[in-house]
């Protein structure tokens, strides 16, 4: 018997005594505020929660976006900024040293960048999280990992209320990266230190729809 058959047989024998299992009670707060439904209070909450985890958050109107993004990058002293395929041209127009990720940059080229700008798939107000799904404007998973600085642009219409709303809005077949602040560790005396292997600096620009 293969290990597969052996393990399945063991499981069946081990669970033979279990009768019908009632459906899991889902009395917790369900998904409620999906994409495009965020009001001002929810956008404000996302801003506050993302800032709690040491992301620097700016808010602007669509017409100001290119300037705000360029200013944020300049303020970090970053010059060579990776720009992924599908990143809106009107947002990257004023970037001083844009490096197109087209064709995709290899790891060594990514390592030579000062930072990257991307869009995102969904943002969660409750937890201050952004989620990337490697869709247009987001680059590969390595694109937002290897460089030391990441600026993510979030449209207000992408902000959802809580974790259940994000799960409902995402595609489980795509590679997903959930990001809540810059990389961090609590491994030394359980004290949080920001900045380990992922980007040590995370900027978020919220653009009003």
């Amino acid at each position, binding site marked *: 018997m*293969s*290990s*597969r058959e052996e*393990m*399945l047989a*063991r*499981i069946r*024998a*081990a*669970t033979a*005594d*279990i009768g019908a*299992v009632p*459906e*899991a*009670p*889902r*009395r*917790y*707060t369900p998904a409620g505020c999906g994409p495009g439904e965020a009001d001002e209070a929810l956008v404000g909450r996302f801003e506050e929660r993302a800032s*709690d*985890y040491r992301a620097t958050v700016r808010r602007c109107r669509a017409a100001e976006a290119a300037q705000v993004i360029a200013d944020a990058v300049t303020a970090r002293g970053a010059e060579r900024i990776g720009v992924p395929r599908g990143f809106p041209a009107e947002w990257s127009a004023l970037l001083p040293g844009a490096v197109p990720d087209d064709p995709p940059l290899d*790891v*060594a080229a990514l*390592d030579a960048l000062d930072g990257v700008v991307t869009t995102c798939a969904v943002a969660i107000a*409750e*937890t201050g*999280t952004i989620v990337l799904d*490697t869709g247009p404007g987001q680059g*590969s*998973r390595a694109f937002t*990992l*290897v460089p030391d600085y990441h600026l993510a642009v979030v449209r207000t219409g992408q902000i959802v209320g809580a*974790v259940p709303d994000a*799960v409902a809005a995402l595609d*489980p*077949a*795509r*590679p*997903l*990266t*959930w*990001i*809540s*602040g810059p*990389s*961090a*560790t*609590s*491994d*030394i*005396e*359980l*004290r949080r*230190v920001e*900045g*380990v*292997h*992922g*980007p040590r600096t995370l900027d978020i620009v919220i653009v009003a729809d």
Partner: protein
Amino acid sequence: MTFLGMPTAPRGVGQLRQEVPFPVAAARALDDSQLRRNLGHATSTIRAKRAAAVAEVADWQELRAAGAAIKDDVLAHLDRYLLQLEEQVTARGGTVHWAADANEANQIVTGLIRATGQRHVVKVKSMATQEIGLNEALAAAGIEATETDLAELIVQLGHDRPSHILVPAIHRNRNQIRDIFLREMPDAPAGLSDEPAELAAAARAHLRRKFLAAQVAISGANFAIAETGTLAVVESEGNGRMCLTLPRTLITVMGIEKILPAWRDLEVFLQLLPRSSTAERMNPYTSMWAGAVEGQDFHLVLLDNGRTATLADPRGRAALRCIRCSACLNVCPVYERTGGHAYGSVYPGPIGAVLSPQLTGVADNPDLPFASSLCGACFEVCPVAIDIPAMLVHLRSRVVDDKREHHHGPTPEAAAMRGLAWTMSDARRWTWALRAGHAGRLFGRRYGRIRHLPGPLAAWTSSRDLPRPPRQTFRDWWRAERPGEDGA
């Protein structure tokens, strides 16, 4: 009662067993005042933070109930969900392997790495690979594995063993960590201070070249969605993302109980896990992938290693709900004082005391179910509501049953209990026995309490006093108070 035909985790491989009895190891740990200071400091910090993070969630108890019920459904239909997961992962270009025990899992992983021609792999922190002793097996095959989680790196460089599920180097303070880095890390900056931020920066510099050059990575998994084949790794530092993303080949070793039935179930567990483990609303990074993505080769190794033996015990199987958050360690008065090494297994603390003996069989970890005061704090904080105290009591009875089966003649406890049952089953015998207790008044005359009993009874008074028996038994007093009302 044993669970017939269910093999437990094999001996001689991995790290699930006590090398010395818990009381001996605990006594050693208690003598180490530095260790006790480090642990007390770290566990009190995280306890307060967790309480605040959980208090913020109005529907915490409802999430907890859902989490427990979803996991019970997984356990009840584990065969079906594993087959569904296998089908999904395979359909998305991944390869699924089944490992009945630690030895088979180590062989599979070694074979997969050999096939790539690589001699070096990077690793994401994973309890399953610690449990099976994968690093040792790889070393024996001439393959070098680098741990990339900061705490695991501290443990690896310190030639040490992990002592906590979430923070394996919790027993070390910043000073000791600096010393380890300066001694073992050739590229550590000479003037390295003990500031946590500087220590983290040193680890970043040390590991960066290895990440960028790595061709093979090994990870565990926090969740695997049967419905979609999606795997999830929850982390903080970005070492997980580095390992999961950059290498050409990714090998994930996962205990079979890590499954969730549906994608939607993540809405429960991504709320329960971060707040319970690191006390954050959300951990910095969570990576999810389904099958082989972005041109990678992906292998999933499904590990039994005593899990089906655990599943076979109706009163012990709920231990498999565990999502390895480690909240129970941080609140446990025993863990806080002894630390994780005393438990012998990679799974320490309350959850380890119920999980390790089930994975190995109680005969190989007979002390662990007794390493608890049954205070119940672990049950209260458990995000999937595992009734650890009740399970400890159940496992204590399994230990006793096991001893009876494998020892010739009654144990001293069994003989004493049988004698007591004989005495208590007859009123006259009982009255006589109580009066005989007067003899105990020979002891404790000086302090009014008995501080040292003779012979084998000394074990009882080695850590506590015994009250001196009264001059008169309750029954004699009653008879004197109410003459003629004698019920005895």
